[in-house]
């Protein structure tokens, strides 16, 4: 646990009481910061050896009207996994991009933009990644009604009925080509 406590102490010293730090498991700790401290903290951690941004995930706290962004950092020297968490407003979700700190974040932010509708000013490439021609609201938000969308767009098959009685175009006249 020594390496963890050491880096958490350093963060406490540098960022004060606003950064809530807590060890979670062996080799994994979390740091919760307000949005304005996110970029300084990520830059600081990168300088401390946390050079690998493994992913950015998002949690939809719909009852509290907030998204929680989780930046997963890994240090190969310290062999530590840090979760940097920050909360943003759900109505107007905007986070300045972290591309200057972690180049790889471009793709992660692109995906979050697509799945949760979070805006990342400064990211040059927020085009759709998987969802071509998407017309609904961002699908990973909890208020997105998946089943309703599927019923409207693709049509569900009622498995209690015979499939072959479904309406579909039928060739008139004889089968075959003779």
């Amino acid at each position: 646990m020594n390496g963890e406590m050491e880096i958490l102490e350093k963060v406490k010293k540098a960022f004060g009481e606003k950064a809530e730090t807590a060890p979670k498991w062996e080799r994994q700790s979390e740091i919760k910061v307000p949005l304005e401290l996110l970029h300084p903290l990520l830059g600081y951690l990168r300088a401390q050896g946390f050079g690998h941004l493994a992913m950015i995930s998002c949690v939809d706290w719909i009852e509290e009207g907030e998204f929680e962004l989780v930046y997963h950092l890994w240090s190969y020297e310290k062999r530590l996994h840090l979760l940097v968490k920050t909360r943003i407003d759900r109505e107007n979700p905007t986070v300045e991009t972290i591309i200057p700190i972690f180049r790889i974040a471009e793709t992660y932010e692109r995906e979050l933009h697509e799945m949760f509708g979070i805006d990342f000013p400064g990211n040059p490439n927020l085009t759709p990644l998987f969802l071509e021609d998407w017309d609904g609201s961002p699908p990973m938000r909890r208020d997105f009604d998946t089943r309703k969308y599927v019923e409207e767009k693709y049509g569900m098959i009622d498995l209690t009925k015979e499939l072959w009685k479904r309406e579909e175009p039928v060739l008139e006249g004889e089968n075959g080509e003779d």
Partner: protein
Amino acid sequence: MGLFRWSQSRSLWMMHFCTGCGAVEMPPTMTSRYDMERFGIIPMATPRQADILLITGYLTVKTLKRVVRSYEQMADPKYVIGFGSCTINGGMYWDSYNTVKQLDLYIPVDLYIAGCMPRPDSIIDAFVKLREMIAKGEANGWKRYRENLEWYRTNQAKVFNVEKWSAIEP
């Protein structure tokens, strides 16, 4: 024309459009254990030289666009086999927001293979059945597509979210 159709059914070139997990069932079907070449069916790399389009699994909207394009590049007569539950009713992706549920709304399917996954035995079985259908002149999906193009185009345009979609301009 009976001889013509009989010879057609004896020489089929198959393009397998490998989406999803169905692709793993193809190598044993092609290679020595099940050996589909016994039935005159050989895999082909390009749609322009293939007779059968085998859709092995779920299709996202993005993939469906490529499937329609590949299908339209194939020369007549052409046959489509839907492989696995995903192509029939969505399978385990029945409520996914991004996969199409019924393949035959978008391209004409001659034959479905049920199962998740279908074993190579059932694939071979489907090929034999398709051969019979071709010999009898029942596998006429390519004609249905041509005659009901407007219906298929409407369905395609609905999921592609455009006013009018034409994969290849006539």
